[in-house]
């Protein structure tokens, strides 16, 4: 009954919930999604890849507005999908939420938020993960 993707999503929980990437301790490059081996340092990086939690803050490098979405995202269209460059330099592709589509622009500061990504139908598991939204300033105006 459903559950085809459960094990795959479960394995990816650290990445999807908390943007856990890997850092090569030889050259200090950061990777997301995680890598077992650094493609630059190759065998020198074996055993020297460590997990690193990314800040979740970054800027929109480019974006597109989806008007004809895949089935699981039908109710959300039109919505924005962007390539976000995080502070650590890695780029991730993500939906942009809580943002007026007229206001979205390249260079906009965004931060990771926690949302439902999809599910395996009405009876299946629900998959959560990161999406990005415009950065909010929290200075107390009082």
């Amino acid at each position, binding site marked *: 009954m459903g559950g085809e993707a459960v094990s795959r999503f479960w394995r990816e*929980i650290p990445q999807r*919930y*908390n943007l856990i990437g890997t850092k090569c301790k030889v050259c200090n490059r950061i990777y997301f999604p995680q890598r077992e081996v650094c493609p630059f340092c190759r065998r020198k990086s074996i055993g020297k890849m460590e997990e690193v*939690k990314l800040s979740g803050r970054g800027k929109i490098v480019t974006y597109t507005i989806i008007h004809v979405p895949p089935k699981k995202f*039908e*109710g*959300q269209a039109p919505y924005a999908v962007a390539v976000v460059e995080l502070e650590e330099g890695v780029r991730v592709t993500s939906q942009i*939420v*809580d943002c*007026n589509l007229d206001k979205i622009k390249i260079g906009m500061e965004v931060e990771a*938020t*926690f*949302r*439902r*990504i999809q599910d395996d139908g009405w009876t299946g598991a*629900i998959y*959560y993960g990161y*999406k990005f939204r415009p950065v*909010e300033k*929290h*200075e*107390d105006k*009082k």
Partner: protein
Amino acid sequence: MGKVGIVSYGAFIPIHRIKVDDIAKTWGRDGETIKKSLGVYEKSVPSLDEDTATISVEAARHALARAGINPKEIGAIYVGSESHPYAVKPTGTIVGEAIGATPSLMVADYEFACKAGTAAIQSCMALIETGMIKYGLAIGADTAQAAPGDALEYTAAAGGAAFIIGKDGVIAEINGTYSFTTDTPDFWRREGRKYPAHGGRFTGSPAYFRHIINATKCLMEKMGTKPEDYDYAVFHQPNGKFPRAVAKMLGFKEDQIKHGLLCPFIGNTYSGSSLLGLAAVLDVAKPGERILLTSYGSGAGSDSFDITVTDAIESFPKEKAPTVSQLINRKNYIDYAIYAKYRDILYWE
């Protein structure tokens, strides 16, 4: 290390709002009459990709951002809600993983209509008092369901608040708590059913008012306090009128309840309701000020708390997360058609 209390807190309210006028128009009712009778102008609405788990995670992350504690020190997470995304599979495990508190911790989901979040605070208090855990995370959050056209549709909203309970670095001490509980079927949702049912006017006197009044009076008796001893009072807010009425019956003044009365602008966030009110009060409270909090959950029961704000609130970094008023003012209006889509009233596969 002193008394058990609130170490940190965080809130979350989805960005979307629908006006009571729009809901009334859909069903051929007069918006002005309904706004006047309920004391509610608009309510928050979750997006299709938001649910009790996502709201809980956002609120918990806001609390952690302000707390400056290692999430691994959290020994228990209790999430109170009547709209857990799964009937079987805890919301708390999702929260635990998303804030980095797993795997050495206790987790359980609570359900007691609108008061499961305050029940979560009590459980955390007990675990801390007995020394079983250092910090506990208590959350009240909901994406409340209401049948299309039902009176509840004007108020059933979404939001939540998270409280880190502990003894170290307490910004507000919990001096005491008291619960008043009876078997009163004023509001319920049967297993497998999508929308709750309620006893109409029966939800008033024998339910909301009886439990809140008794819990609050017994707490004040236990603590030896009077209404005028409190700077703020927060009562559960199913609409804008009940909390005002119950405050008056108990002898509290408008000035004491106004800071925590959010229902007129966001609706009834169920398990989040009284806790968001408490969060809004902590956003403005000063050292030494005293807060009375009484929740209400249909079925029925009330948890009452006597809380004193400590000096630690002055250096507490509130700016590391949005205040409740910032969350309320961050809004995007939607009409009933979009609301119907977001709340899964339209059927499509």
